[in-house]
């Protein structure tokens, strides 16, 4: 029998606020344990939460980017369960009236764009972190407690592990574009749990689902889902039951392992948090928030393809990060050729930045200067080869390309008279290859051009050299 895979993802995005969601402690990550805490985020008796306005604004912006319905009325609920990292023994979350209702995200797939439904995107507070010591004791670090999270729940619209990967990539890209989160999986500011079930192809009913946790990278999500797809198909084919359970992905084994069954699942006893008042905002705010959104990655990708004539691949790489796309466009506007600019950005620039551990914002070469360098090539002032040297120097010093060329005397030699002399010397010095070429061995010309370039320290105009050699040897 053929089976259809049904996948839904729950993503937690850490919102980029200065302070925590319900108190004024700084919201960042790391630091000595329990140094960014106060009576409120420690849940001490008598303390009360006060909602961070900025967190609501960021969450609404994210909702707008995900095309979510905004009702203008939202409330917070308590999710009750005991765990040492949860100091109040309940998490303030949103259950009955989330800030952002149903929406969607378009993702690129091999078969074109696909629209993935978003069930909801709601605000909640993060829990702390347990630290286990060698002597068997555990400690709790509450620094992370109360950091604002946006939980984005997708509809079960994903059909392949690869689609889940694409969805996460697109979601991260969008969240970073609209500057609501750093979405750094390593730092925990972007976390994902996956739900997967299989059903007979053509069936409308959903199969028994399994939740997978401990997914530390997009690749891990894809791998875990692939493993689970095979495991569940095996069970179904052997007519064995699939149990509703939570499984952990073990990256070393590349397998999912059972953690707890549905019977052990919590009854969270959600109810409205009486310490907080509803969030109410007028409907016109919705339009305002949408109006302030930047161009989103998929739209920009399409435009890059059409406006700059770039291949899909280039457009995808260049628009994955807003700052990179901004960089490209700034250089393009400054007059660099679109395709060669794309090659230089994706090749030389990203390569160097990567090596140096810098982001595009930290690039020592501003977009305008890279455009300047490319113009020097196009105008024939320097060769592509020299340009790489100039680029390397620009990366070190940040200097104007034209000044480097001038100071170093790197101007391309396009003077016929000067080059004819050098061509003459090279031919005289290498009679063998010259004879080979005359004898019809076309490849020999390459060696001779190389010799001229060498003699001119790369500054000769290679096109002209080629021409002169051929003329002299014909």
């Amino acid at each position: 029998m053929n089976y259809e895979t049904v996948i839904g993802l729950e993503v937690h995005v850490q919102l980029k606020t200065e302070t925590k969601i319900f108190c004024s402690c700084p919201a960042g990550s790391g630091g000595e344990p329990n140094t960014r805490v106060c009576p409120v985020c420690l849940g001490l008796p008598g303390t009360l939460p006060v909602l961070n306005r900025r967190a609501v604004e960021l969450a609404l912006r994210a909702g707008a980017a995900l095309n979510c319905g905004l009702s203008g009325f939202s409330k917070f609920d308590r999710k009750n369960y005991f765990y040492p990292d949860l100091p109040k023994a309940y998490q303030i979350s949103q259950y009955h009236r989330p800030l952002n209702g149903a929406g969607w995200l378009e993702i690129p797939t091999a078969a074109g764009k696909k629209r993935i439904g978003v069930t909801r995107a709601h605000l909640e507070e993060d829990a702390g972190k347990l630290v286990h010591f060698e002597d068997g004791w555990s400690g709790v670090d509450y620094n992370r407690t109360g950091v604002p999270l946006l939980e984005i729940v997708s509809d079960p619209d994903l059909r392949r592990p690869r689609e889940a990967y694409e969805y996460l990539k697109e979601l991260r890209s969008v969240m970073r574009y609209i500057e609501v989160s750093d979405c750094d999986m390593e730092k925990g500011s972007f976390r994902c749990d996956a739900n997967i079930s299989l059903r007979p192809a053509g069936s409308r009913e959903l199969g028994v689902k399994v939740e997978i946790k401990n997914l530390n990278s997009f690749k891990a999500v894809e791998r875990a889902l692939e493993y689970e797809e095979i495991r569940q198909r095996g069970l179904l084919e052997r007519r064995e039951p699939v149990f509703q359970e939570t499984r952990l992905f073990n990256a070393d084994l590349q397998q999912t392992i059972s953690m707890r069954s549905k019977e052990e699942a919590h009854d969270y006893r959600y109810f409205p948090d009486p310490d907080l008042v509803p969030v109410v905002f007028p409907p016109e705010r919705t339009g305002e928030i949408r109006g302030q959104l930047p161009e989103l990655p998929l739209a920009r990708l399409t435009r890059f393809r059409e406006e700059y004539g770039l291949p899909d691949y280039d457009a995808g790489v260049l628009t994955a990060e807003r700052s990179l796309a901004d960089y490209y466009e700034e250089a393009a506007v400054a007059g660099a050729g679109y395709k060669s600019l794309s090659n230089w950005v994706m090749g030389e620039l990203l390569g160097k930045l990567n090596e140096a551990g810098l982001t595009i914002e930290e690039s020592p070469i501003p977009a305008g200067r890279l455009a300047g360098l490319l113009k020097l090539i196009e105008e024939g002032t320097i060769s592509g080869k020299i340009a790489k040297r100039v680029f390397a120097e620009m990366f070190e010093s940040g200097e104007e390309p034209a000044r480097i060329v001038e100071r170093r005397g790197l101007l391309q030699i396009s003077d016929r008279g000067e080059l004819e002399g050098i061509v003459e010397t090279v031919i005289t010095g290498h009679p063998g290859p010259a004879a080979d070429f005359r004898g019809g061995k076309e490849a020999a010309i390459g060696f001779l051009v190389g010799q001229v370039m060498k003699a001119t320290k790369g500054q000769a105009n290679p096109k002209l050299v080629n021409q002169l050699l051929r003329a002299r040897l014909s």
Partner: protein
Amino acid sequence: MNAKLNELTARETAGLVARREISALEVAEACLSRIAAVEPLVGSFLRVDGEGARAMAADLDRRLAAGEEPGPLCGVPVALKDLLCVKGWEVTCGSKILKGFFSPYDATVVRKLRAAGAVFLGQTNMDEFAMGSSTENSGYQITRNPWDLDRVPGGSSGGSAAAVAAAEAPVALGSDTGGSIRQPAAFCGVAGMKPTYGRVSRYGLVAYASSLDQIGPFARDVGDVALLLEAISGHDPLDSTSAPIPVPAYRDSLGREIAGMKLGVPRQCFAAGLEEGVERAFRESLEIFRGLGAEIIEIDLPRIPHSVACYYIISTAEASSNLARFDGVQYGYRSPAGENLVEMYEATRRDGFGEEVKRRILLGTYVLSSGYYDAYYARALQARRLIKDDFDKAFERCECVLMPTSPTTAFEIGSRIADPLRMYLSDLFTIAVNLAGLPAISITGGFDASGLPVGIQVIAPPFEEEKIIRTASAFEAGAGFQDRKPVLSVPPAAAPGPS
């Protein structure tokens, strides 16, 4: 004069200290002496901070001498219910589970009292986590009613009410979730007010039921209630449920006439098994109001009989969540028993909480559990709305509502503890007011045959505490019941106070 400083009103004390006719330290000493003398009989306090009180008073005297502007509560000794957080103090909510929890911060009301020049005497006894109507549910001790030491002071703020009645402190703060200020005020013959929900910040009040809890003052007369209420009211950025409504000068409502004022009496309040003495005193108090020129009209609060059921669903649901944090992990009591985390949780909560608290946590957990939420919690919220509607309708016809505070006067210690349901039902008249979020005061409206005080409630629309103060102070002026004081026969050996 020294021996009587503890019997001055807060208004008198603040005036005398501000004018430096007496020192704050003298007043504090007088209260501490009285406490030392009567505590063995009454047991109002869980902890008395004599050293702290003297230091606060002395510091205040120094600052006044240096020309500092006196605050409105300058030198006024205050007793605080043991669920208000005071920086550096152990705060236990009358529970063993919080033993050893020292608050690192001040509740907003505590901060406001400090700013107003008050002097803190210590923390008063209460039913554990404010759950109870007799203060017998305290995890530490019982408190006796100063009018009759064999009787309860009411609860849950029984310690605060008894301390004021026994002249250990001129004023005290309590909290009221279902009557926990008004009922003990009634039983102890003092004035006690539950302000409108949102009038006083709850920041630093250890929560029982967050949507019902409200901090309020106890005093020996309405004037002092007004003074204290003014000092603690107002919007607090640390409490989202506190209202951004300006605080009026409540004392301006004192000594005003009530002639022509329409006061509503719900017909339901006579049908609910009032004790004979309570009914008689209540009816007589209505005559006093009439004598002051007020018009008494009958009103209808048809849904009020549902209050108790509604209250015990909402309050326990919230409590089950609010009290979940007492799990032995961060602070307070942790059971040494248990081999793992879950066993530690279970043993800590089993041994740390008292019976009544556990009963309410179980009830609240049940009504919120999956599959029961709609049948209980959601319906209780609807019922609450209807009860509020009843009051809204009533206030279209009258300015304030009058009701007995409790169907009985103070009962004997131990007489009700085995029958929780009967204890719950006795809170009918106070509970409805919390569900509707309204302000209400309890003042002494008369006495029963055995001389025990009978409390009457004056209830007003939200944020109209001024009407309550005006009505209640006019009644006081007309009736004079506040001048009658309990007599405690203090054994001479136990009275080492200054001579």
